[in-house]
């Protein structure tokens, strides 16, 4: 068991990407992809916190945490230094198979599934704050393995809004 925190702290404005549309190196701003670190790895998502940072006008920002209909392929990395993935406890031992996380996919970007949106995290980025936390392990949305449908998730912005700048953190636990 190892809890880790992924954060984005540069107040980036996400791009709305429709379901089943591939993410790219252009529309991946303020998005995050997670995939199981092995075929049997289990990852639970405990907490989502998003702070609206838009400066001047109403900005409905429809952030979504969702399963994917096409999994990411290749190493996942971060596009900029404003993203971070870190252990929460300084004494956490290094995982044999770290959970791949990032907003850049080396080979193929994932696509958000149209039917498996797990958590609606939208907010008005002009002054809004969103927070969700699970109370028990069995209440956490989770991924298992690396296969399509259950082994790959994305946190991203969907279409229909006028996204504004946000920053956020996500806490997850690998087991």
């Amino acid at each position, binding site marked *: 068991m190892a809890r880790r925190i992924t954060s984005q702290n540069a107040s980036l404005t996400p791009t709305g990407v429709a379901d089943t549309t591939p993410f790219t190196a252009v529309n991946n701003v303020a998005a995050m992809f997670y995939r199981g670190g092995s075929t049997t790895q289990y990852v639970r998502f405990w907490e989502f916190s998003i702070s609206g940072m838009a400066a001047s006008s109403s900005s409905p920002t429809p952030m979504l945490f969702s399963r994917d209909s096409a999994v990411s392929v290749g190493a996942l990395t971060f596009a900029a230094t404003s993203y971070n993935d870190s252990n929460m406890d300084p004494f956490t031992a290094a995982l044999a198979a770290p959970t791949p996380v990032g907003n850049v996919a080396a080979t193929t970007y994932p696509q958000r599934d149209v039917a498996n*949106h797990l958590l*609606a995290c*939208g907010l008005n980025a002009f*002054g809004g*704050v*969103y927070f*969700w936390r699970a109370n028990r392990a069995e209440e956490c*949305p*989770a991924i*298992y393995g690396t296969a399509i449908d259950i082994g790959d998730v994305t946190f991203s912005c969907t279409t229909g809004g006028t996204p504004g700048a946000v920053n956020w953190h996500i806490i997850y636990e690998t087991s």
Partner: protein
Amino acid sequence: MGKLFTKKSRDGYVMLDHRESPGVTCEEAWRTGNAIIPIGGGAKLEAATFTCSKCQKVIVKNPGRMRERAYCRKCDHDVCDECGLQLKLGHVCTFGTCWHVIQVNVA
């Protein structure tokens, strides 16, 4: 003596604070496919949530809801309306359909 288990002890917590924001109208939320909970400007939502044991969608409990909530007796857990309909139509709680069963087998 051990702690008494209650279903409420499993509840998650969601907070959407638009007290210092113009908020989001129902129309704006609808345009996003309901990716935003429509909380108006100057308002703040704090609510309990549960995670559907079938599809793992996180559901915000509407405190004003009068209809009964779907429930799976096999995993002793609330399920979302869509999966509740599947249960009523005879779909069973199995390894492949219930995340609670998967978690027990993986842990």
